[in-house]
């Protein structure tokens, strides 16, 4: 990940404290791969370590903030594709835990292969994961084993497909042509260098 000037400009002690916290949480969660760019601590764990990591962090980070999936795919129907060339298509599931004293917040992340997108449910550890997992289930098609009520949350019954997958087209943008296609005049930014900055 690129180092942004903002982080570099951060006061050194604050950044060190962040690094310490990240290392400590990673140690607790049994994760060897962690980042703490932009103040966001992110711990990557293995699929088997998903539940143990949460259980280990629960006492220190009792606040369950959210859980969400990401579809990493090179072939996308919406938006821009990711830049990494060597990216292997997979799902990522992230959960965010926080404490309610000093404001620490940790994101746990696990990669799931596309052909076997299953994960143990978090509901016994954090009850609040129930709705979040239901959402991730319908949006990405990720199966949460042991979930008490893994049915659709938002989408109507009988809805086919998983809308937040990158392969799922956004119909409103498919049926209507982009009104900005015709080029009559050149874009002003290309001919007017003064307009480069707006301040």
């Amino acid at each position, binding site marked *: 990940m690129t180092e942004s000037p*903002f982080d570099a400009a951060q006061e050194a002690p604050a950044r060190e404290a962040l690094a310490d916290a990240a290392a400590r949480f990673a140690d607790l969660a049994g994760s060897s791969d962690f980042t703490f760019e932009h103040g966001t601590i992110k711990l990557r764990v293995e699929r088997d370590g998903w539940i143990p990591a949460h259980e280990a962090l629960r006492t220190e980070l009792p606040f369950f903030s959210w859980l969400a999936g990401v579809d990493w795919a090179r072939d996308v129907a919406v*938006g821009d594709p990711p830049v990494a060339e060597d990216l292997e298509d997979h799902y990522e599931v992230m959960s965010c835990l926080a404490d309610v004293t000093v404001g620490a917040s940790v*994101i746990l992340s696990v990669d799931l292969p596309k052909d076997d997108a299953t994960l143990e449910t978090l509901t016994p550890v954090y009850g609040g994961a129930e709705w979040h997992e239901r959402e991730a289930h319908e949006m990405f098609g990720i199966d949460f084993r042991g979930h008490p009520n893994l049915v659709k949350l938002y989408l109507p019954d009988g809805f086919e497909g998983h809308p937040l997958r990158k392969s799922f087209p956004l119909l409103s943008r498919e049926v209507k042509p982009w009104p900005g296609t015709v080029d009559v005049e050149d874009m002003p*930014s290309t001919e007017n260098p003064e307009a*480069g900055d707006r301040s």
Partner: protein
Amino acid sequence: MTMDPRAAMHHSEVAVSVELQTPDMTLNLGPQHPSTHGVLRLVAQVDGERVESVEPVVGYMHRGYEKLAEVRTYPQITALVNRIDWTSGFANEIAFVVGAERLMGIEAPPRAQWIRLILTEMARMANHLVFVSSYPLELGATTPMFYALHERERVLDLIEGVTGGRFHPNFNRIGGVKPAAGGGSSQKKLAQDLPKGFIDETRFAMEKVFEICDTMDKLIVGNEIFRGRTIGVGVIPPDQALAYGVSGPNMRATGIDFDIRKVDDYLPYSEFDFDVPVGENGDCFDRYMMRLHEIRQSARIILQALDTLPSGPLQAKVPRIIKIPRGEIYVRSENPKGEMGYHIISEGGRGPYRLKVRTASFSNLSVLQWLLAGVLIPDIIAILGSLDFVLGDVDR
């Protein structure tokens, strides 16, 4: 600890009906029901007035923000996100623009930060004024609504005077607040600084807000019927609140002293002196009081911010076409309804690769099923209202 609703149902059945076993009735509350704040649907199994179990059904207002964000540029998303929770539109924008700014490694100039802070607190005030006035409405008192909404209108007028929008300001820009538009030289498109008279009008409005808080104290808080309806009703224990991610005033009502404004620095809150009200019992009454106190604290913050308003530019230098370097960030803010956060994953493009929106109402509402097992039908409404959710914030 999660409580299996079936177990809860069984438990209360044993407790309530020893001799007479009657089949439960399924009562559908919503999606069209005056007290479900829009289109929430509750499928309740009721035994007379007692509710055995409730299954909340959401999604009638699902607009797919996370998908929409994937085909939009960052400035366009700012216009979009303030519609997630429309009762506090301005506050929704903050965490997103701050996240984008941090990813780009820039920071808004002080004056812009101050203006953001003032308007965010106004949004909080507007949101809480709606809550403190509409919550009695659910309990049958229709009058407070009119008193408080009149004062909210003052606050919204102030927001509109600065931003041009009452509900959906779309005033925050990456690197500051709304700049002078375009590259033209027309006098009609000047910089969007605070309009003249704003400071005096705000001071006056804050006085009125303090007044209306006192009125609410007399009209509602002291009312024995209101207290009877809310004290001890819908108690959320602290550990349950944490496990379900219940945040904001709902969490603080349980006795947890935590406010993101005090620990994070997404806006310069550390410059100001304010209290975070904390409850004791986590019942409906405490949740109501949290918000009433927060209105006063917001007014305090705004008055301090007006005194210390720095001068200077409103915008940091940003490129005309905003592209955010590759990276990811989670930024949260203390929204009126609780923790609102954006997890932005940028792949270097003009828009995010993935935008996860963490909304307060979603988590606050997920505790509902657990909370409503075994209460009375009127308490459904009392508890529902006290959670202060907006369906747009739940469904996104």
